[in-house]
């Protein structure tokens, strides 16, 4: 019992997740800044931001429905953290696992996005509402390709559990190569999920101020930001587990290092992508996802079916 609580709250649970999330935010901002020839923020920046926000006054807009408005950040965080427990990190075993957890994780990862939408919706300010709409529209655009590519990988492993998937790839160490296309699509979809440039459409500063978060300030905003940081880690861990399943059966220490490297690699990839691309327009985003991403994702399924048919007997 004590072990489980320790696992959930400290390691590899909440505490670890928050620290790692902050580290990732710092790395993301630093790379972004350095790519732009700037020095960028100091290493403690995400922590300082959080403390500052947490110590600020909370303002709930008069128009908004207070309970829902305040509840959203907590729901978002809770679901992101829960999802994390089902993802195998540096071993082939997740903290929790059952047959079909892949679906649960995907659902849990959708919830933060929905809370962004609802939070914006309940703020009842114009910019928030438009931001909320865009959040939702975007959700429908990237979610399908993301789902499909993860499914493709699961298909090859012939299981519905993330832990089983990693076990499968640990047994067939070179098969993950076939999933590279899926990995690319996953990265792009993850950009959309995390609302990072070039898909930061729902928070486009120059158009709708800060989108859903426009009316959030103080502690509530701090939690939203923390959720986003955590989501980066969870999303990256998910992609790492599904598409980069190597180095798992080593000693925990080495496995841990490899895991950290994998996640950071994805974080850096995301940062570079957001540095070099201009923001899409919402209709261009929809177009792009449906016209290119989704078909490519289905091609990934085809590839995996072929591989399954030809290589695995």
């Amino acid at each position, binding site marked *: 019992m004590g072990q489980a609580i320790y696992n959930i709250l400290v390691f590899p649970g909440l505490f670890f997740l928050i620290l790692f999330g902050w580290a990732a935010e710092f790395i993301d*901002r630093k790379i972004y*800044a350095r790519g*732009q*020839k*700037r*020095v*960028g*923020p*100091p290493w*403690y*920046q995400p*922590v*300082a*931001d*959080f*403390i*500052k*926000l*947490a*110590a*600020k*006054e*909370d*303002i709930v807009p008069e128009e908004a429905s207070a309970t829902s408005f305040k509840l959203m950040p907590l729901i978002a965080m809770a679901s992101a953290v829960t999802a994390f427990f089902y993802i195998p990190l540096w071993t082939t075993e997740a903290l929790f696992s059952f047959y079909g957890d892949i679906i649960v994780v995907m659902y849990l990862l959708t919830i933060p996005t929905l809370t962004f939408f609802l939070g914006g919706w309940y703020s009842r300010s114009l*910019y928030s509402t438009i931001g909320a709409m865009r959040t939702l529209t975007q959700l429908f655009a990237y979610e399908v390709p993301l789902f499909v590519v993860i499914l493709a990988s699961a298909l090859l492993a012939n299981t519905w559990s993330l832990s089983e998937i990693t076990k499968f790839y640990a047994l067939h160490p070179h098969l993950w190569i076939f999933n590279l296309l899926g990995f690319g699509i996953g990265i792009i979809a993850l950009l959309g999920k995390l609302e990072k440039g070039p898909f930061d459409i729902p928070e486009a*500063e*120059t158009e709708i*101020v*800060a989108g859903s*978060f*426009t*009316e*959030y*300030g*103080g502690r509530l*905003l701090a939690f939203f930001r923390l959720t986003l940081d955590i989501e980066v880690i969870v999303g990256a861990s998910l992609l790492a587990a599904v598409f980069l399943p190597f180095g798992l059966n080593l000693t925990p220490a080495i496995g841990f290092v490899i895991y950290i490297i994998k996640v950071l690699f994805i974080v850096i990839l995301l940062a570079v992508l957001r540095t070099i691309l201009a923001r899409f327009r919402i209709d261009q985003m929809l177009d792009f996802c449906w016209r290119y991403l989704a078909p490519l994702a289905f091609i990934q399924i085809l590839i995996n079916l072929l591989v399954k048919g030809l290589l695995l007997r």
Partner: protein
Amino acid sequence: MGLIKKIVTWGRTKSPWVLHFNTGACNACDIEIIAALTPRYDLERFGVLLKGSPRHADVLLCSGPVTRQIGDRLKRIYDQMPEPKFVVAVGTCACSGGVFKGCYNIESGIDQVLPVAAYIPGCPASPKAIIDAVVKLLKSLEES
């Protein structure tokens, strides 16, 4: 208690998010504020982020002498900012009205409308002067 207060103060001085509001400036101060965020000066070194929403901001950077039209907008934006908040007057206009003092459509300076925490003279206040002011303001926060 003392420790928590110290930590909070530390967080505040390391993460001042700013909102920039043109209160009738000539643009020069505004572009210098933006210039202070770009690679040569990079205010993000001090944790400064430019935010669009008053709800996210800790510091309101005002440039310009406050025209009659903008006065109550300015107050409204200030009210929307969560405590603790600070107003910084960027440029001579914002400090006192500058060359425009005496024109019929302006107030003379931000402090006619809002309490001002720091004044940055200069026409325009150069990016270095802005950084200088930020550092001075943060230092005073740390000490208080």
